[in-house]
């Protein structure tokens, strides 16, 4: 595909008047409507960053309406590790007046407002920002022509961004061609026309904005592996495939559906199967049926769907059937805020069934960890013959990150069901060791075939009403999870080993937590950051860590509840009886901003200066003069 304007050399080819200013990272927020394809701009930038040396994290909201309605995509790109999507934007691209009205408040002082002058009239007396007017709609129509109307505005904007941030045009062009290559040639041509028109937009009309990301320190790049780019749900799906999981069942619900869609498409290639069931209960039941045949299976859902699965999960604990259960948490209860993030299903995951149901709950910290935690979940499920929850969330599910390509030759697990004959001493529920089920098809040499059951049972799986056996079997189910706890590694601990405050996070709050730690310590507070991936059981030894800090501030995206503590904080207080454990919670449906965590910690550490500093936004890196 020949584009009319291909620059001769990548990056700032048309020799801009001023020299590029070096920046470490930038936060760009694109605000438009959901049909404008602004997500795909984010996708291109993410993949470009993956193919360059920059790191990337994106943030996305989609409206819960089916089509149309406001939508934003926020991308933060820069050199080296990017930990959070950024509290505020350095650049706002506003496609419509409502985009401007709703998001101008998120722009840092000195930031760039790039707006479609065909649709947006900024407040005339607001001089806090560098305002750049570009007739995005008419320029796109002129560039592409024909009947496509303003389709391609997103790619035009991508061209503008490429110009302003001196991005690698050759790589972007290749990505655009890959993305649209499967469609007809006109689509690729139109996309390139729009891109080139944006890229060639005269720089003096862009108020001479021209930036370049700092060169990466190659010595810090340890693996030397190429970067791959995906969202958290995709990472879970491919983590499971890596772990040898070939069977699953589910029912559609936002934001879980994309995992089942990926597995439904991918698993047959691997000889597997994913069943779309008639409801959530059938899905968990079918998945347990798969596991019973000796093939560890996955089911998943979001909050309300998990409620429906809870009875069957009680069975899974009683029958000691391995299973992977993904919960992509969203705002609850009930239908709640289906396209917003929350971490309010923690207690449900741990205690949501009836009876005493010890089981495993893991939570990934970022997109890359979604991949690795899926592998770990599969290993634990098989080794301890137990259901394992992966508690991810809406924030991770749709966030795109670039990370080192996993070393598949080392990670791939081949998991064939063991249908070999079982010796005469075989028992499905031995009291002296962890259950290893014999799947149907396995000959039992004693001639006594096992039953798997939800009734309390003896070692052969036959029903019993014996109080002694119920106590012994309850202990058996509990002790294997305690054995797992003893094998868990110490959680990731950054910053000070002892001091004023320990910030504790779980799930998608890892990045903002780590970034907050830097700001807290810069203010002179002796602080550490502890992040929990293993939520239940907790790793051993946390009480000693907690004892070294004056305050343990647990930050989580759920309500403080009737007693003033979030769900994890409540559990940690119950577990360690440490009155210094306190809570920072919120329920606005968004991931933690770094400033919110800093403010929360400062409040509990009684550091008014630090707390006050979070109230004002710092100047944008793009500020002029």
């Amino acid at each position, binding site marked *: 595909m020949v584009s009319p304007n291909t620059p001769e050399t990548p990056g700032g080819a048309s020799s801009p008047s001023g020299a590029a200013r070096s920046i470490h990272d930038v936060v760009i927020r694109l605000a438009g409507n959901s049909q404008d394809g602004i997500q795909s701009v984010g996708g291109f930038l993410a993949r470009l960053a993956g193919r360059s040396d920059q790191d990337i994290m994106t943030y996305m909201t989609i409206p819960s309406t089916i089509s149309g309605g406001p939508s934003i995509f926020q991308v933060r790109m820069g050199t080296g590790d990017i930990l959070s999507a950024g509290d505020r934007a350095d650049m706002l691209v506003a496609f419509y007046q409502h985009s401007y009205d709703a998001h101008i408040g998120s722009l840092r002082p000195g930031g760039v407002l790039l707006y479609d002058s065909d649709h947006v009239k900024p407040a005339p007396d607001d001089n806090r920002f560098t305002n750049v007017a570009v007739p995005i709609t008419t320029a796109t129509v002129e560039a592409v022509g024909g009947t496509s109307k303003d389709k391609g505005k997103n790619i035009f904007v991508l061209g503008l961004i490429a110009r302003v941030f001196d991005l690698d045009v050759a790589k972007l062009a290749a990505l655009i061609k890959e993305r649209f290559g499967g469609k007809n040639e006109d689509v690729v041509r139109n996309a390139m026309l729009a891109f080139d028109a944006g890229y060639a937009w005269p720089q003096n009309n862009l108020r001479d904005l021209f930036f370049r990301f700092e060169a990466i320190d190659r010595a810090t790049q340890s693996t030397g592996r190429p970067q791959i780019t995906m969202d958290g749900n995709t990472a879970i799906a491919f983590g499971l495939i890596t772990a040898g999981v070939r*069977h699953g069942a589910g029912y559609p619900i936002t934001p879980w559906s994309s995992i089942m869609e990926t597995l439904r498409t991918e698993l*047959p290639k691997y000889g597997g199967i994913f069943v779309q069931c008639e409801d959530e*209960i059938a899905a968990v039941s079918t998945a347990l049926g798969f596991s019973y045949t000796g093939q560890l299976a996955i089911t998943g859902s979001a909050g309300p769907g998990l409620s429906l699965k809870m009875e069957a999960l009680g069975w899974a604990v009683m029958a000691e059937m391995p299973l992977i259960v993904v919960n992509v948490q969203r705002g609850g209860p009930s239908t709640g805020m289906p396209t917003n993030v929350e971490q309010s299903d923690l207690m449900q995951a741990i205690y949501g069934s009836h009876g005493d149901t010890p089981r495993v709950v893991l939570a990934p910290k970022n997109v890359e960890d979604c991949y690795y935690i899926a592998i770990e979940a599969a290993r634990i499920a098989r080794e301890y013959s137990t259901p394992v929850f992966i508690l991810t969330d809406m924030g991770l599910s749709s966030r795109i990150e670039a990370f080192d390509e996993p070393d598949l030759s080392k990670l791939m697990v081949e998991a064939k*069901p063991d249908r070999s004959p079982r010796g005469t001493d075989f028992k499905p529920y031995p009291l002296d060791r962890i259950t290893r089920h014999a799947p149907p098809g396995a000959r039992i040499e004693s*001639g006594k*075939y096992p039953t798997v059951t939800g009734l309390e049972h003896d070692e052969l799986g036959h029903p019993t009403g014996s109080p002694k056996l119920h106590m012994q079997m309850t202990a058996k189910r509990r002790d294997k999870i305690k054995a797992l706890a003893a094998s868990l590694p110490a959680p990731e601990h950054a910053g000070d080993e002892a001091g004023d405050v320990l910030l504790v996070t779980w799930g998608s709050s890892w990045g903002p937590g780590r970034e907050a730690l830097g700001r807290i310590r810069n203010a002179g507070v002796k602080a550490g950051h502890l992040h929990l991936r293993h939520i239940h059981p907790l790793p051993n030894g946390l009480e000693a860590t907690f004892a070294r800090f004056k305050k343990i501030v647990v930050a989580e995206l759920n309500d403080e509840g009737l007693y003033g503590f979030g769900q994890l904080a409540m559990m940690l207080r119950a577990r360690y009886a440490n009155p210094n454990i306190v809570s920072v919670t919120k329920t606005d449906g968004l991931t933690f901003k770094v400033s919110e965590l800093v403010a929360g910690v400062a409040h509990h550490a009684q550091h008014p200066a630090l707390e006050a500093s979070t109230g004002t936004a710092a100047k944008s890196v793009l500020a002029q003069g």
Partner: protein
Amino acid sequence: MSSAVATPPPPPGAPLTKKALTADHPTWCPGCGDFAVLASFYRVLEKLQYPHEKIVTFAGIGCSSRFPYFVNTHGGHFIHGRALPFAAGISLGNDDLHLFVFGGDGDGFSIGGNHLVHTARKNIKMTYVIMDNSVYGLTKKQTSPTSPLGFKTKTDPTGAIDQPINPMRTLINSGATFVARSHATQVNHMVEMMLRAAKHDGFSVVEILSECVEFFEGAFDAAVPRKGGAWSLIEEKKHDGTPEDEKRHDTSDEIAAFKLAMQPWPGVFGVFYENKTRKTKNALEADLVVKAKERTKNASDLALLQATFARMR
């Protein structure tokens, strides 16, 4: 508490006998119809001579769902109403098994009603035996979805007022590819129906009227000749060209099957409907795998995933 095995197991390849198939002593009340169903099932397995380790007996919750404890095969006891989706996982997870699911009218038509419909429409390979006693027995006499109008229970002390389900109509309508009806007092007939169901390639269902002597005595006497009832068998077409064959039932004729299902109580017994052409979900899913493998030229799992990741760079 289980003890060591007292007698040596039969050697591999020895014929599968009732003795080898017998497990716990049934916990049903004396006189329960389910005993006859169990005895018939042993006979079915003796006739079929499947490899012992490939037989799976599964159930949900209810009196009849205790069945798997009394049959010495691989098996299990799941939660109320959900035995079918669990069994779907077994069937689709390992196509090389002989899968029998047992349950009652509450399990199948009430709490598990939706699963029955969807397992039937997907035509997942298994045999489902519904032991219908028209009452909730395990919980001591509440109205069931097949309780007749006017039947007095603890939840309908003045008599049931809700229209009962017509099992045959429900099953045919759901798309089950083998639908038969039998009676626990007719052992030979039960054996024949279960045998044909087991040999059917698809989702096969046999509803067996099985009396609860404790809570609904005499429920099915209308079909028991020695109690003054009428035992009417479905005469199936022999396709012999004779004039009398005209009147016989064509089991592949769905409309004719509906008409049989609409007959007044106690109706007829035998095979109402059989569809031998519709593909099972097992086969359709296997086709998907074959086609996917063709497209990927049988690439190894590692090569496939590496190629996928390469596209994400």
